């Protein structure tokens, strides 16, 4: 009986922890006026030399209006972000181009930052792998 109760408790804990992980896939920041910005982005991306790849960036906001800018930093050499767009809603597609001579890297640590009004900004890591085109 004790073993069954213990297993039940462990199972419930695992469920709770699992729910928290699923709900915390984004990075959330709060500004001084109570606005919150949650950035959701893929954890990793693979791009071939000479090709264009994209990622979808999702934004969740509370008490935060206005466009949200998205910036990518520390991209591998030869990989560039081609978009200058801002998100006015909750989602945006961002494209990257890898030059024919882009560095071949595995699990390169770049980062994506979403910035809204009032200086609010959320950052997440983005792992990039560059492979040979053919």
């Amino acid at each position, binding site marked *: 009986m004790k073993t069954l109760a213990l297993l039940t408790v462990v199972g419930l804990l695992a469920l709770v922890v699992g729910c928290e992980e699923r709900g915390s896939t984004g990075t959330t920041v709060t500004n001084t006026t109570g606005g919150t910005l949650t950035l959701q982005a893929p954890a990793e991306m693979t791009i071939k030399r000479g*090709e*264009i790849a*994209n990622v979808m960036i999702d934004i969740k906001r509370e008490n935060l*209006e*206005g*466009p949200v800018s998205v910036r990518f930093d520390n991209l591998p050499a030869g990989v560039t972000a*081609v*978009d*200058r*767009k*801002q*998100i*006015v*809603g*909750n*989602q*945006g*597609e961002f*494209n990257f*181009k890898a030059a024919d001579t882009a560095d071949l890297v595995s699990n390169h640590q770049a980062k994506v930052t979403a910035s809204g*009004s009032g200086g609010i900004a959320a950052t997440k890591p983005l792992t990039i792998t560059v492979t040979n085109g053919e």
Partner: protein
Amino acid sequence: MKSTFTVLALGAILMMLVAGCQQSTVRGPQGKALTLTVPATVTIDRGQTQVIEVGLARTDFTSPVRLSLTNLPHGVTARESSKTVETTMATFVIQAANDAALVTNQAVSVRAQGPDGMATTEQFRLTVRQ
């Protein structure tokens, strides 16, 4: 807030004007307006991929805009020929096959559809080179 949007929209439009572009504005109810800006010309080589940037300036609304790209030359395909976007710009990625039709200044249409029936179409001239 409205002024911020206006400044950003004007900035984007100005940048595209400098680069050479086509644009049109459709107006809706309650002061809403949608301005679509496309490049004047695009050139792509056979076997290559090209990104086409489309500007979307919204006035007094922030909802998604539906975009579609039509009348591409034979052998030129878009990764997505239509999409719904929530951004100030949108990008179409087009690819020319190795045997794509060699055309000069073919008119390609971009249509933008916003809320309240607002819709506008612009064209750019696409050239496919060897």
